């Protein structure tokens, strides 16, 4: 899964620490999500969506091999 967390964070001009505090996780969790080492839960994704004021799929999207068969 790809993400644009770093870009969205830059738009809001907040550090990893500040974003972590806003959504109640550790800085390591934000760092791991940004580096694609950890995929957050739906709850965390929705919290991020509220902070960025954007839909979840605007900063998280699936890779080619993860796409569902429609």
């Amino acid at each position, binding site marked *: 899964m790809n993400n644009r967390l770093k870009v969205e964070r830059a738009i809001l001009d907040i550090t990893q620490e500040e974003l972590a505090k806003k959504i109640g*996780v*550790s800085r390591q*969790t934000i*760092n791991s999500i940004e580096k694609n080492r*950890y995929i957050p*839960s739906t709850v965390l994704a929705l919290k991020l969506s509220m902070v960025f004021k954007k839909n979840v799929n605007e900063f998280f999207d699936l890779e080619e091999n993860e796409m569902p068969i429609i």
Partner: protein
Amino acid sequence: MESFLDCERKDINKLKKYQLPNQAKNIGWLILCVAFIPLFFTTKDTSSKLIAKYSILIGLLIISISKEKIEDELIKSLRMQSFTFAFIFAVFITITNPLFSYLANFVFAEQQEIFSGIGDWIILWMLLSVQVFYFERLKKMHQ
């Protein structure tokens, strides 16, 4: 009326609150360090050695089930990974150890020994120490 499954689900959910506060981790490390002292200074298998051995397990268990400063979903996931790894590792070693000790006896001591099991303390020590070590390693990997 609550179904049997609902009751069971509630009971299982109660078990989820097994974790100790973060401060308990320091107590665990203290117990662990103190418990190691008799192992170095007592030569014979005395009762103090036995108490020390069980104190090591209690110390490791306290460290293992203590919360982190920020217990978020990443930490929970890493904790689960470390428990899984430690469980598989301990089972694997427990199963393979008698075979290796049998082969070692057969090759080096040139005598056939009956298969002997691995002690329960060793299994628990291995399970807990591997979990604690692997969890710390996973945390470092996500720094």
